[in-house]
């Protein structure tokens, strides 16, 4: 092996009478290493990250438990599966957001990023993005599971968007005392609220914040609240989240042309998200 110096200067210093010779000795291994480095970087490695769970998620498939609950509904105006998505399903980009209604970062993400995305000038209205909300209530938040139940009940009568916004807009208020109901009521007509209340039958929240919520039992491997039909939808979202895997909220997964891109977590501003969408659409 040719001499391998720590650096070029040292090589020059070690052979002061023959600087050219020393340069050749240091340049050869350095050039070899450079070529090796470039070769590694240019190797055409492609990773397909599409999983069966992700494909199911992008197609909006629901587990059998959720379908069974939906089929048992007696109100003809209530949809079989809660619609928690926005925009055209055939949009080139699908974005799934795993969110917790009581998480401050999720609220910031909704207010600063999803709201412009959903606005009249946003990419959802333009037919470029299909946005899907997924519930991922965390055990550390005592009221987030209950909030997700209200959102799912509203979604079953087609009022998800209003309740979703109301829950995030008033997060500080209901997170302090657990009184979610009044904000849900304020987001829709009294008639709609009555229908939502009927769907919430058997989904009573713990009386105080100190009581271990159903979400905590579910996340620790137990069963969600007995008798609440809406829990099946939340647990199916949680199962999808675990397959991503979701480790924090908000986490979002983006699909483009059937390909799943790696999940991102945390608050991302709308201009930066839009820039990513543009890079996908320009491919």
């Amino acid at each position: 092996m040719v001499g391998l110096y720590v650096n070029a200067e040292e090589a020059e210093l070690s052979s002061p009478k023959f600087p050219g010779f020393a340069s050749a000795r240091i340049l050869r291994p350095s050039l070899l290493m450079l070529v090796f480095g470039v070769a590694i970087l240019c190797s055409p490695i492609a990773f397909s990250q599409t999983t069966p769970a992700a494909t199911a998620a992008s197609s909006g498939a629901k587990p059998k438990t959720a379908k069974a609950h939906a089929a048992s509904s007696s109100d003809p105006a209530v949809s079989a599966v809660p619609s928690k998505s926005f925009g055209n399903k055939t949009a080139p980009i699908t974005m799934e957001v795993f969110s917790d209604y009581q998480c401050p970062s999720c609220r910031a993400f909704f207010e600063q990023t999803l709201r412009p995305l959903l606005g009249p000038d946003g990419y959802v209205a333009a037919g470029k993005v299909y946005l899907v909300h997924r519930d991922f209530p965390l055990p550390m938040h005592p009221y987030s599971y209950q909030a997700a139940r209200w959102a799912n009940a509203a979604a079953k009568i087609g009022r998800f968007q209003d309740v979703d916004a109301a829950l995030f807009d008033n997060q500080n208020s209901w997170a302090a005392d657990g009184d979610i109901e009044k904000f849900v009521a304020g987001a829709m007509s009294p008639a709609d609220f009555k229908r939502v209340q009927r769907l919430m039958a058997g989904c009573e929240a713990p009386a105080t914040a100190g009581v271990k919520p159903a979400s905590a039992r579910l996340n620790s491997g137990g069963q969600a609240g007995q008798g609440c039909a809406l829990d099946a939808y939340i647990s199916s979202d949680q199962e999808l989240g675990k397959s991503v895997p979701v480790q924090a909220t908000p986490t979002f997964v983006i699909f483009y042309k059937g390909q799943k891109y790696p999940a991102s977590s945390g608050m991302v501003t709308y201009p930066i998200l839009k820039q990513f969408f543009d890079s996908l659409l320009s491919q």
Partner: protein
Amino acid sequence: MTSETRGSLGRTLLILGRLILAGIFLFAAYAKLKPQASMGWSGASIKTSLSMFAMQVDSYQLLPPQLVSPAAHFLPLFELFLGLWMLSGVLLRYSALTTTLLLGAFFAMMVRTYRMGLEINCGCFGPGERLGVGTLLRDGSSLAFAIAVTIGAFVLHRRARKDASVPVSGTTIPAAQHAE
């Protein structure tokens, strides 16, 4: 252990250290630039990867939105340059110092984010890695390692200069006079 053996060991360790640091930086650059999903290498795929990295930079909530994208486009290329510079061994003490400063900045940013309680992706080696105690320990160790390599590079450079000032006959010529 003779001083010659010690010097030889020091040089070997420094070569090893610089190659490891070069590997870390080249892999970090590769992970950020590599095509996501099943795309092949192309200008468009690199643009998409950099846009994805911009989302990770943005989630640190440190830079104003107008600076996020330029930073996200500059960092992986700078990491690539640093990795190749370290690999070449040219002016090692300066490349090691630059590496240490960059790793120090990354580590400070990560500690700040962790203390703020933000649950985000690290973005250190591409997407999908959550910032946590594990990533902090890893980056902290890398920083300590880079500091050691930098100190080693400066010490060996000084020693090499000192040795060069000693002629074969054994008569020491002062360094200042030698430089003239």
